[in-house]
């Protein structure tokens, strides 16, 4: 995919000669760049799903292997295992899971949060730039709606986008009440206003931030609120390996593996809420990933096997500015806020090649074009483009201490002086645009099963705007939490079983797929821990 680039030393010379106002080159229509270079548009590495609700759809092969896999448990393995009862089970305690748990518990439901890793260990903490919400006088829900739908290439569900943008201001109010400290600026009359940044592809500055670690700050507040809520029980190191279903195919609970005691446990609930995040650690297309350790598509696998429909599973977001050098830090993100503030991207000839604040997919595709055509930069075998931070600092001397603090730390770890030397960056697998089909309340097609956060799809279409991920997880986390608590109000104890597996196995046999490829994956490929290893420890 990448051919060798221009040696770093030559590239830096070219950059120095042209900065701070390098020439623009190669203005090609965005649609053409996307078609020729964006991974979503390439057939390579994809396959057609043969089993399940999306049979016939294209899907990256690495994901298809997991979606079309066999269960880690047999009915006979779990028969007679003690069943613990609760009202709502939340699978995955990232931002969406915590928002859902808090909302459900506030409605009076008993909530159990199951974490594969630990509470808050999630992609939410990786979100740097900020959160979108239409709170400014010159902004409106309608503009936020239009920006989101347009950036998603009109593929997103209008109902879901409307629900999300509608909740924006209330989500911000809720976060402030929970203790999130957003950045502020002084207004003309000395009043305190929320500081707002501009996301690529949007028409109004709408990004609210906590410097460049917004997700971390939000997660900090959510974690504290969850830990203090008397209605929520949190269990860490307890991944869900299968959903429980009754004879009608309704989801009635979850099969849990306790990684500390190596025991299989069953939890029965009136509502199961998957907030398991995305699939970045599958390294789709062999891209480096910005995602945290747990992003192995577990929720997609569980929901799909239980009969839920997915949407846009072939569409991923490649963040334009993951670090490309040094190799130990490849994939570490530099926030889009850097480009929003004015940082330019240049190729090995010292030329700009794209509007840096175009939508992410366009910027990433343009970078991949430079890499494919030999105009990128090569250093120690790594290939990328240059992000001109020094010119930004020259223009805004306080920016590394006031706003882009994570960038400064990252540069220090890379051994780069960001005031003097550009950073080498490249498109990095960042976000799963699609996911489980949900309605405005997070309900899936499977009764008893809700989804929220990155595991759900249909909101961002085929490209997500910066800052909408944090809003999405909180808006739909709260909506799904409310709906799940409402369903749990029935307090009916339904039978538990693995009834969905029979039809599933028939599908695998019919399609000639192997029965010994098991999922969810639980841990990424580099962990060298297979799900079979995990189950073997429990026997």
């Amino acid at each position: 995919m990448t051919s060798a680039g221009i040696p770093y030393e030559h590239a830096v010379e070219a950059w120095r000669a042209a900065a701070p106002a390098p020439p623009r080159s190669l203005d090609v229509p965005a649609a053409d760049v996307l078609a020729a270079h964006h991974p979503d548009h390439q057939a390579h590495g994809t396959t057609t799903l043969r089993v399940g609700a999306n049979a016939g759809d294209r899907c990256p092969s690495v994901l298809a292997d997991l979606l079309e896999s066999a269960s880690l448990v047999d009915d006979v393995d779990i028969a007679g295992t003690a069943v613990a009862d609760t009202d709502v089970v939340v699978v995955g305690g990232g931002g969406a899971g915590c928002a859902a748990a808090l909302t459900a518990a506030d409605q009076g439901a008993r909530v159990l949060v199951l974490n594969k890793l630990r509470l808050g260990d999630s992609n939410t903490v990786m979100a740097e730039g900020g959160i979108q919400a239409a709170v400014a006088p010159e902004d409106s829900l309608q503009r936020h709606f239009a920006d989101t739908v347009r950036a998603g290439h009109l593929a997103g569900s209008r109902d879901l986008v409307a629900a999300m943008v509608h909740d924006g201001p209330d989500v911000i109010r809720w976060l402030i009440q929970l203790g999130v400290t957003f950045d502020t600026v002084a207004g003309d009359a000395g009043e305190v206003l929320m500081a707002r940044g501009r996301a690529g592809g949007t028409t109004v500055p709408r990004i609210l931030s906590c410097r460049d670690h917004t997700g971390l700050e939000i997660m900090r507040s959510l974690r504290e609120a969850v830990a203090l809520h008397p209605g929520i029980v949190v269990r860490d190191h307890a991944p869900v390996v299968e959903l429980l279903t009754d004879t009608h195919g309704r989801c009635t609970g979850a099969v849990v593996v306790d990684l500390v005691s190596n025991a299989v446990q069953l939890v029965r609930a009136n509502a199961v809420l998957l907030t398991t995040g995305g699939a970045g650690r599958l390294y789709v297309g062999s891209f480096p990933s910005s995602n945290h350790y747990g992003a192995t598509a577990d929720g997609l696998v569980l929901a799909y096997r239980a009969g839920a429909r997915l949407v846009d599973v072939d569409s991923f977001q490649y963040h334009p500015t993951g670090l490309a050098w040094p190799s130990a830090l490849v994939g570490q993100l530099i926030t889009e806020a850097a480009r929003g503030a004015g940082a330019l991207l240049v190729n090995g000839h010292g030329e700009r090649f794209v509007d840096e604040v175009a939508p992410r997919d366009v910027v990433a595709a343009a970078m991949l074009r430079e890499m494919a055509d030999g105009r990128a930069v090569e250093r120690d075998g790594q290939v990328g483009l240059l992000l001109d931070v020094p010119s930004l600092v020259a223009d805004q001397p306080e920016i590394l201490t006031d706003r882009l603090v994570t960038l400064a730390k990252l540069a220090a770890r890379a051994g780069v002086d960001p005031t003097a030397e550009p950073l080498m960056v490249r498109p990095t697998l960042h976000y799963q645009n699609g996911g489980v089909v949900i309605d405005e309340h997070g309900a899936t097609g499977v009764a008893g099963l809700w989804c929220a956060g990155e595991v759900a799809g249909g909101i961002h279409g085929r490209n997500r705007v910066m800052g909408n991920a944090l809003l999405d997880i909180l808006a739909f986390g709260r909506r799904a939490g409310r709906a799940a608590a409402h369903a749990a109000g029935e307090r009916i104890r339904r039978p538990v079983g693995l009834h969905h597996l029979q039809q599933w196995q028939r599908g695998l046999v019919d399609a000639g797929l192997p029965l010994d490829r098991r999922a969810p994956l639980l841990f990424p490929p580099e962990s060298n821990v297979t799900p079979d290893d995990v189950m073997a420890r429990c026997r």
Partner: protein
Amino acid sequence: MTHIGGSPRLLTALDTLVGVDLDAWLAGPGGAALTAAVADPAAAREAVRLADLRGMGGAAFPTARKWDAVAAATVPAGERWVIANGNEDEPGTFKDRVLLEHAPHLIIEGALAAAACCGAANVVLYVNPRHAGVEAAIAEAVAQWRDHHLLDELERVLGEPVRLRVHASSGLYVGGEDTAAIASVEGGFPFPRRKPPYPTTHGVEGMPTVVNNVETLAQAAVLLRLGAPAYRDLGVGEASGTRLYSLSGDVIRPGLYELPSGTSLRSLVFDHGGGMLADRSFKAVFTGGPSNTLLATDGLDVALDPDSVVAAGSRLGTGAMIVISEGTSITRKVAEYIDFFAGASCGPCPPCRTGTHQLSQILHRIDTGHGTPADLDTLRSLTALLPGSGNCGLVDAAATVVASALERFPHEFERQVHHR
């Protein structure tokens, strides 16, 4: 959509699964059975006897004995009844609803032939309204027979016009018991009552009544068309005719299979059902209800006809076979089925009402990891105490399934109560 397979195909032949199109039915195999029955009712009854047709609703009672009993009654045709029982509700059985929806004229013709043979002018198609589309299909099919010349022939035999109507059952499981079906047709709640007296002498309004499962009537129509010798030859060995097997559970190709009566369980599961799911080995099968003794691996070569299955210690029942693999828990399946029986118990007989509930509670406890060894003792006591204590066979069925599972798979139960 139920997968339909097997061979030879009589009940499930393409020219028989014509839906509510009477012209299509009569252009194909339709009409021959009723013509034969009205031509010589006594000979037709004799053919049914020679063909050894048995009830397909679960009890495998010889059909000819019911027909002969009602035919021998002294009351006029207007006071004799034929009920085509299509109430079907138990887990794993799905043959009647397929016939009713896709071959309604086969059933109607069988019921009219029964009416001719028994001299009964009242024919009731008793169907379960919970089966989507069935009630409407059968009503439309009945309407198409109006003024058909074969009904004139039938009137000549009966001495009065036949009254053919559809009666929607309560949809409840107990409503499939024959005395309960009679109570329902009389307009009451479908409570089963003690037998004897039997419906053939004391049926609807106390009058002689034949209650036949709809597949039985469909088989009767086929055998009257083919003649008893040809029909008998369809079976394997001593068995007669074909049967509909409702195959479900851990098999690759579940569905409705019409096969020669006496086909082995092994052939049904492995030749027709595609074999076991996910390469698991065969563990057991819940037969016909699931209200009978389980068949385990030593039962794989049992011929699936009523007498052979009884000889193997179980019963064929409705022909439903719920197959269980080594990957599936027997205790969970039993708990599910007993849940069904407890929910279906209609109330008047206290041992059934509370006994099935107790069984269900204990099994549920064991299934969810909260059972104790004392629970197993209680289960064993209940399965000894309960049989025979109800007006119908519901409580017997529940006790039989539990006792059989405990006997065949004690280790699964014991592992679960000790596994704390």
